[in-house]
């Protein structure tokens, strides 16, 4: 990167070309970062014009918005406000990526601390019914600085291990905040406190469904992909079919699973002893499995096609058997592409499992749908937030694994 330019960052084009001016365009005297300008504008609007939190007399009633200044004790409001404004201004300027990362982290931590301080300030002692939830102002601030954070990490072009370390650090900070009880006054955490047992239960079944259906798709999809690679006919039939499966909307797919399964169980009652029914985990797992097949099969085919023809010729010419060639040469070379398919499937499944709750499949979607049914938005959040965190973690870990594999052989 262009860090060698020393201290002249503010006036010269030292940043990567993505934000640099178009070639030939005159350079501004003071360089303003375009994305930073958007972030700063969002942050200021969120801070000054939007409600920071919503205050509700109880969990069902709709709340009224409370601005940043009223939501916090004066000292916290002023101090916190200054930090956020300073961060917005720094985002505007062209500073180095590491500095940008620092600014974003500071703003995000400040935001986390501030929102935790609101319930103590707003809810009168002894009132167990009143609820405080983050509102549009908070979410927009979170969004703005999360974008700044993501932008800074992208510009740093971190290596895979660094990205995993960053993820671990972020999870650690969130874990510490949760453990400290700082957010316990927030409505979503009070929902958690009531549902703590079932929360981890649903979490386990969420992961089991997402990973289990992926594992099944790998067991079936890898051999299918290998067969498709060898037979153009099979590929011509199977891939279009899987493509069509992929286009079926998830809700329709879950619905489609219920009828045949119910009939099957009616015909073979012994199946119900294994927990197979028209609704519940079984149809959800089958639907997720079907969705997972296309990325696994297609990426296996593409990965095998990417193996250099000369490497295959050399492997045969040196006397490898078909099996040795497959396991020693073709599959290892195809592995990064296959893992890309696994990443797609895992992230997709973690999201899709949420909808499986509709047919009683369990998982965090249970809270989402119960929340929608009760118009209790905090309940939706209790299901959505961990789902997003899981998908995000899976994506970063698998991306890092893929990059590590690729890096060794460039």
């Amino acid at each position: 990167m262009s860090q060698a330019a020393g201290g002249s960052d503010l006036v010269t084009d030292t940043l990567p070309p993505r934000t640099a001016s178009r070639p030939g365009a005159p350079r501004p005297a003071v360089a303003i970062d375009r994305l930073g300008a958007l972030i700063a504008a969002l942050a200021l609007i969120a801070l000054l014009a939007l409600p920071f939190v919503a205050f509700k007399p109880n969990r069902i009633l709709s709340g009224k918005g409370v601005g940043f200044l009223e939501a916090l004790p004066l000292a916290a409001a002023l101090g916190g406000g200054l930090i956020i404004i300073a961060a917005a201004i720094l985002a505007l300027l062209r500073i180095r990526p590491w500095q940008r990362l620092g600014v974003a982290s500071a703003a995000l931590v400040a935001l986390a601390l501030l929102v935790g301080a609101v319930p103590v300030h707003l809810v009168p002692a002894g009132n167990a019914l009143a609820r405080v939830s983050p509102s549009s102002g908070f979410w927009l601030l979170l969004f703005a600085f999360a974008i700044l954070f993501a932008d800074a990490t992208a510009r740093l072009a971190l290596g895979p291990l660094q990205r995993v370390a960053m993820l671990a650090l972020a999870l650690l900070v969130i874990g510490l905040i949760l453990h400290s009880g700082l957010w316990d006054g927030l409505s979503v955490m009070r929902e958690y406190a009531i549902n703590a047992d079932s929360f981890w239960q649903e979490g386990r079944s969420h992961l089991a469904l997402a990973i289990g259906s992926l594992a099944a798709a790998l067991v079936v999809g890898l051999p299918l992909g290998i067969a498709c690679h060898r037979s153009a006919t099979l590929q011509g039939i199977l891939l279009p079919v899987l493509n069509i499966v992929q286009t079926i909307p998830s809700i329709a797919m879950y619905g489609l699973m219920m009828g045949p399964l119910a009939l099957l169980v009616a015909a073979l009652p012994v199946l119900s002893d294994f927990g197979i029914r028209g609704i519940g985990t079984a149809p959800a797992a089958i639907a997720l499995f079907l969705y997972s097949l296309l990325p696994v099969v297609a990426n296996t085919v593409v990965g095998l096609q990417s193996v250099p023809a000369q490497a295959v010729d050399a492997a045969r010419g040196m006397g490898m058997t078909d099996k040795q060639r497959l396991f020693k040469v073709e599959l290892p070379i195809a592995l990064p592409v296959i893992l890309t398919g696994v990443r797609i499937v895992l992230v997709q499944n973690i999201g899709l499992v949420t909808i499986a709750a509709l047919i009683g499949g369990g998982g965090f979607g249970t809270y989402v749908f119960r929340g929608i049914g009760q118009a209790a938005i905090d309940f939706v959040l209790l299901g959505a937030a961990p789902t997003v965190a899981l998908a995000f973690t899976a994506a970063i870990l698998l991306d890092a694994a893929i990059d590590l594999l690729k890096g060794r052989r460039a």
Partner: protein
Amino acid sequence: MIEVDHISRYFGTVAAVDDVSLEVERGSITVLVGTSGSGKSTVLRMINRLIEPSSGAIRIDGRDTAGVPQEELRRGIGYAIQGHGLFPHWSVARNIATVPSLLGWEKARIARRVTELLELFELDPALYASKFPHQLSGGQQQRIGVARALAAEPAILLMDEPFGALDPIIRAKAQDDLLALQKRLGITIVLVTHDMEEALRLGDKIAVMDSGRLLQYASPQEILLRPAPGFVERLIGGPDRPLRLLSLGKVADLAEPGSAAGEPIAADASLRDALAILLWRRADSLSLAAADGQPPERVTLSAILQQAGRPA
């Protein structure tokens, strides 16, 4: 000895190889040369049964290869191809160890062999063993490809356009290295190329192929002096034929007693080089670098010119 006995190979109704017979002597270099689609690679690939002949037989030291299990046959024959075909996910050492591992050699023996080969190809084992193919230059990749083909000490080495991906300067060096290597190891090499220059330079014998048929199978001198009419004649009938002919002869062949002025020339230099020096010096004789105590020898311009023309 490899005996190719009336082999043909049909793809559908098209004959890629049409009734080809030739014998490759032990310890020699045979070059199959022809345009693309001439069937030269198909002949090569039938020797290690990457392609099965439609008819005919191939015998190695009298043994019909059709009776040897494919993998066993291939592990006993070195195989090097254009663009090296190295495995991108394996280190140089592991690439070289491919066939010894398949044969189940002990680890220590494999490691010794890898080191030995890297040294043979002038690549420092400490530096190169753990590198990956993409970290090497084209010439180094090609050398590793040949080292890998030689790893299990095969008696026969098959090479399909091994230098096709190299630039001209590196290619000339690679050709010299191959000649030196063959002399040192005494192995039998069958090499495929589309480059007649390369064939003349490397081959003890040259098989010229076109449209699946073997047009002429002879020594380079024979091909230059008495090309088969038609395709072969057109292939080598360019204006530089006398020079090609001279590059096949050695100075020592025409040495006669006597002395000459100027820097002497090595006895194993080609006549073409000797001619070039004579022309440049505007001289008509050139002394040979004489061994101690031997009478002085020289080579004359007229003797060289005599050698360059069409035979009477």
